[in-house]
């Protein structure tokens, strides 16, 4: 087995192994790159409801009255008053913010985006622990794939041919961007 054959076997098999994670990291990368425009983890919905104003002054009575008017039969996870005129009721994935004097209620629902939430957690290494090790291995695999990829072909299509121009272009791009970024200030 010559070195190029070994190189190609490594490139191919590591590539097969890395497909799953590459999709996870790629899709999540696109999603979190644009987090200024949307929430990549949660689907957030805000609706406004109106109930009769709540006149009670005791905390327990306020909660009881608010729940009755909102038709919330289940016990909330918690209730909190950030200020004298507001009551917040917390349920799983839902928060009710009641303006006591007016009866205006903001219902905020935050549900994890299926699949994308999990992908983002892995991509951003939220679990830490053993996942750090897996992510490190994947990073090494990417480097190995990149390096071995340069030597898969020889000749006109290989590194000696057009490959060297493409590799140079790929290396120059981040360098040029960084210079532009520094100059721009």
């Amino acid at each position, binding site marked *: 087995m010559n070195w190029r054959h070994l190189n190609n076997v490594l490139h191919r098999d590591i590539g097969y192994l890395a497909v799953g994670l590459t999709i996870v990291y790629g899709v999540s990368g696109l999603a979190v790159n644009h987090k*200024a425009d949307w929430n990549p983890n949660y689907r*957030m919905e805000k609706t406004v409801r109106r109930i009769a104003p709540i006149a009670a002054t005791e905390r327990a009575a306020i909660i009881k009255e608010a729940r009755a008017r909102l038709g919330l039969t289940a016990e909330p996870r918690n209730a909190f008053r950030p200020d004298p005129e507001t009551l917040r009721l917390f349920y799983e994935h839902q928060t009710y913010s009641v303006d006591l004097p007016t009866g205006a209620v903001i219902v905020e629902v935050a549900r994890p985006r299926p699949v994308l939430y999990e992908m983002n957690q892995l991509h951003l290494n939220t679990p830490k622990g053993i996942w750090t090790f897996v992510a490190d291995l994947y990073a090494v695999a990417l480097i190995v794939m990149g390096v071995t990829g340069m030597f898969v072909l020889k000749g006109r299509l290989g590194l000696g041919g057009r490959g060297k121009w493409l590799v140079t272009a790929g290396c120059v791009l981040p360098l040029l961007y960084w210079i532009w970024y520094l100059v721009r200030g």
Partner: protein
Amino acid sequence: MRRVIVSALVLALATSAGLAAAAKKYGKPLTVKETTKISDIYAQPDQFNGKRVKVQGPVVDVCSSRGCWIAIGSDKEFQTLRFKVDDGVIVFPMDAKGLNAVVEGVVSVTTLSVEEQLAAAKAGQDAMMAAQHAGGGDHKEMAEKMAKEKKTIDPASIKGPKTVIMIKGEGAEIQ
């Protein structure tokens, strides 16, 4: 074979149910033994400034952008305390709202002058963010998001210097 799969699924469900009941740990383990009341910190902020404390209370808000802070309800009504971690150190989930948190970190007390509040309002920051980044830094993206969500300081509400208290930490347990 089917029996093995069913048993494995039942075991996995039982384990996950057990894990759900236990406190979920974020970041570094908690080390401070004694719990400080949030109301005590509010009563004497200068006494706690720079001190490492452990506090507990319901999670009443979570950073929807990066999950990098939670607001904890005090033992007294109408008081909340923000627990801030460096971006990426801990990512708090939005569905932590309403659960009980125990957090540990260093109390930070910042007094924002009227001029600083006006500058923060102009930059699209809220008081907490202005206090957090009083030393400067590039937080343009965050400021733009706050401006979009209208969470910035209302210049009309500025009456005088404002004291902002938060805890900067690395560890939390939420249940």
